[in-house]
């Protein structure tokens, strides 16, 4: 209960700080937490008022805070996130020609966890996602599901594991009709059907496209539609293959933040595994990262625990000067490696103060820096390994 009140207070702060877009999305999440239809109705009315009355920032803030305060009366039972959802035990996938082997994979995904899956193309990200979704068979090892899922048939398990491929299949008819159709199939019927679908459309920014069909939507909105459809199914585990591929920079951040927020829902937590090439964005929201190279997994959080990794700093750098200038500037440092990929340098060294000594040297030697990032704790460093 305390969690929900805290959450509401946190969301209210967004309105106080005039972060209306973020605040409104979080407000809808709070409404979702209640699972209460009158609340949904009020939330939809609030959105319609926002869209049609064009209120001032102050008016919007006041009304939203009032709405949030009204939510405090509802009791939201937190759902346990301690038990695992899926556990893989040494799973291995060997492709028939023997050209590629994925594994062995040992991961444990809990309720509320967000896992990032990164790696270069063709290294088995999609394969792993499909194996977890039971869409692809594996040759070795086993997958364990939690008690609620374990006794179900494959079909019933798959109703609760949702896998969204990078290229989503075409659908026919209007966006809202399709969402309603899905919701009805998952037991959301009658008036609830309309309310849930409306809420989901508002939540994923699809409200104004509710009557559009597949061909009228951009790739980004198609992905949003898939997410809305998936959340209507109230999945236990959500597996997303490159969900950011078709989203603009701003949308990528919004979607990732929203996914994380929804995964950590108080009443409906779920596990999320998403693959992406947007390393830094994914790392920001992920609790754990798996890096796949030639099918072999590296768990970033485990990797970072190693002493030699802890000690070494890895900096990504883009400068206007040439390599000689850089090497001259860094001669006084104990550099273990400098590599150049044509655009950026990766500088590795051991130092307890991280980026600071490197920056001091570069500035001292008038190196013109265009871009710098400390990737010591990022999976980015593994791409060069």
């Amino acid at each position, binding site marked *: 209960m305390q969690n929900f009140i805290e959450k509401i207070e946190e969301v209210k702060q967004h309105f106080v700080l005039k972060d209306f877009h973020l605040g409104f999305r979080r407000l809808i999440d709070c409404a979702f937490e209640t699972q209460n239809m009158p609340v949904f109705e009020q939330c939809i009315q609030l959105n319609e008022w926002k869209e049609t009355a064009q209120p001032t920032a102050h008016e919007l803030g006041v009304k939203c805070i009032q709405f949030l305060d009204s939510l405090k009366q509802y009791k939201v039972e937190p759902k346990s996130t301690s038990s695992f959802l899926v556990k893989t035990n040494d799973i291995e996938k060997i492709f028939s020609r023997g050209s590629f082997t994925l594994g062995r994979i040992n991961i444990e995904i809990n309720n509320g966890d967000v896992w990032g899956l990164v790696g270069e193309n063709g290294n088995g990200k999609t394969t792993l996602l499909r194996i977890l979704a039971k869409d*692809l068979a594996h040759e070795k090892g086993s997958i364990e599901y939690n008690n609620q899922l374990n006794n179900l048939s*494959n079909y019933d398990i798959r109703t609760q594991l*949702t896998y969204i491929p990078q290229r989503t299949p075409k659908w*026919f008819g209007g966006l809202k009709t399709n969402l309603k*159709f*899905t919701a*009805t199939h998952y037991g959301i019927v009658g008036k609830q059907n309309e309310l849930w679908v409306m809420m989901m459309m508002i939540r994923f920014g699809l409200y104004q496209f509710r009557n559009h069909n597949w061909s009228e939507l951009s790739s980004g909105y198609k992905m949003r539609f898939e997410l809305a*459809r998936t959340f209507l199914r109230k999945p236990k585990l959500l597996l997303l293959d490159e969900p950011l591929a078709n989203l603009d920079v701003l949308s990528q951040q919004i979607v990732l933040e929203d996914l994380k927020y929804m995964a950590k829902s108080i009443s409906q937590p779920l596990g999320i595994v998403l693959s992406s090439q947007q390393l830094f964005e994914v790392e920001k929201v992920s609790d754990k990262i798996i890096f796949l190279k030639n099918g072999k997994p590296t768990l970033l959080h485990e990797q970072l625990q190693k002493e030699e990794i802890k000690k070494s700093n890895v900096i990504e750098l883009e400068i206007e000067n040439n390599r000689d200038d850089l090497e001259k500037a860094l001669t006084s440092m104990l550099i273990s490696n400098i590599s150049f990929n044509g655009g950026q340098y990766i500088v590795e060294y051991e130092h307890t103060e991280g980026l600071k000594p490197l920056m001091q040297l570069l500035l001292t030697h008038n190196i013109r820096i265009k871009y710098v990032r400390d990737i010591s704790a990022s999976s980015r460093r593994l791409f060069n390994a």
Partner: protein
Amino acid sequence: MLKKIQQYFLENKPLYYQSKFFEMMGIGILLWVISYCFGWLITDIKTLQDNYNISNYYFGSFAIVHVIICIIIYVLWAFKFFQTNALKHFYPLSKFYHHKLFLQIIVPALFMISLYYPFTTGVYGKVKFILKNDELVSELKILNKAYPFLVESSAAYDVTNKTYPAPFPIASFSKNNNNEWSNNGVYFKPNHINGIFDTSNILYNPNECKQIVLVDNQEYIFYKSHDETVKFDSCNSRNYEVIDSFIQPAHQLIKYNSSVAHFSQILIQNNFDKLSNYDAETYYINDIAPNVHQIINTKNKKALVNIIDSFLNICNKYEIKHRVSSDKYADYLLAKDFKIVSALSNSSEWNNGYSPAPADVTVVDESPMVTESREKSVETNPTLGFVEFESIRRIYSNYQTAENNIYQFDVFLFCIALALIIAMVILLAFSVEGVATLISIPATGVVILLCGLLAILLHSNDSAMVWVLFIIALIFIALGYYYVTSSEFSKRYTSIMVLLGFYAIPFAATFLCIIIHEFSKYSIHQPCDNNYTAYAHKLEPLHIIMLGLVGFLLYLPLLKKLKAKAE
């Protein structure tokens, strides 16, 4: 309104929304109403005269229109149905998803396909509307009374076609309360069709030998019999009339010359309940025969003219063609002492103006004059006494069909089978990926060809072959199940095997029915003749369809397993 209904199904009943069940049922019901009205509107007295069996009236142009309408509706429906494919995007929660969908497809399909029934009902309704039972019965008496005096067709001058020695039958045959023929009930075969006793149509059962009875110098055999199906092999069977006993008829048979007076045949005999208050046999014995004899004996022209005039009134009412002038024709009959056949066969009558039909003249004379006469139309060379009796018979026969609501059972079977096939095909195409479906079709062809080759190579008897084919069908069904449950096979191969399993179901059902039929075989020992084989359990298409349906419903859960199977 329609949008509101669709919205309701979208929000509450996704399967109904997807299958468009109520819309399709609505269209089906509308088509039923239209078919009924159509059947009603296009039926008139001419329809009854032109159609040998009104229960088949549907199988004219209306059937073609029906097929075209159904194809259009189903193409449009399938387009919508496949667009809202829940299985393509997610895993529907519904427990019996495929079963429910199957029922929601098959029921409207059955409605849509079976327009024969409302159409025929409409036809029957109109028939009952334009013809009344009481009127028909009273008219029937008149028709039958006049019939002995008239010429049925241009080919009916041969006395054996219309008469046999009178007064036969002298007893009225009847059935007892158990719907069995009473002891008096006998059948007869005149001598001229005696040949069929020695062919494959009739089987002897009784120990006693057949007794030939002479009636009016004609040979007859009297016997009691029942029908039975006898099987030659797995494909061929035939209905036989099995003779139970031969009978020595105890009746008086009076010898007469062939003449009108000896007609014992009547125009229309009714064997149906609705007209059964008119018993043709009884009526003939009690009313027609004495009346005919009285007119002939007294040479009562007035009575004869009255009978023929009454007959002609009915003909005119129903627009039945005839070439009868009652007065002239009565004169002719009286002049010829009612001996029509001999008179019309005589070419001298031709010159006297009693124009015989060209066909009859052909029998006796092939002269150029006769040939020329034959080529002239009936209108320009009318045949005295000629009536289109066939039209009358058809009116009565079709009325009886309508009154007793007789429908073609084969159509019912066809509708069920077709609806089942439509529902099966749609559901399988809907649930299984397209490539697997496409591969499964030639694969099925190959399997059937191999089975055919196996049959030739084994060169075994029919019974053994049926067993082999049944086992092969079962193996395919089992393989479908094994592939789905095993993780060793790819999803595509599994899909193909499951489809082959589904295709094998109707074959398995057919072979199983044949095997059960074979098991029910028993042999009847014949003391005077060879043994023959009979079957306690008939091979009914309906049993095969029902068994196939049950098999399909039991196999349907595999589609869910297939959908959930990992690749």
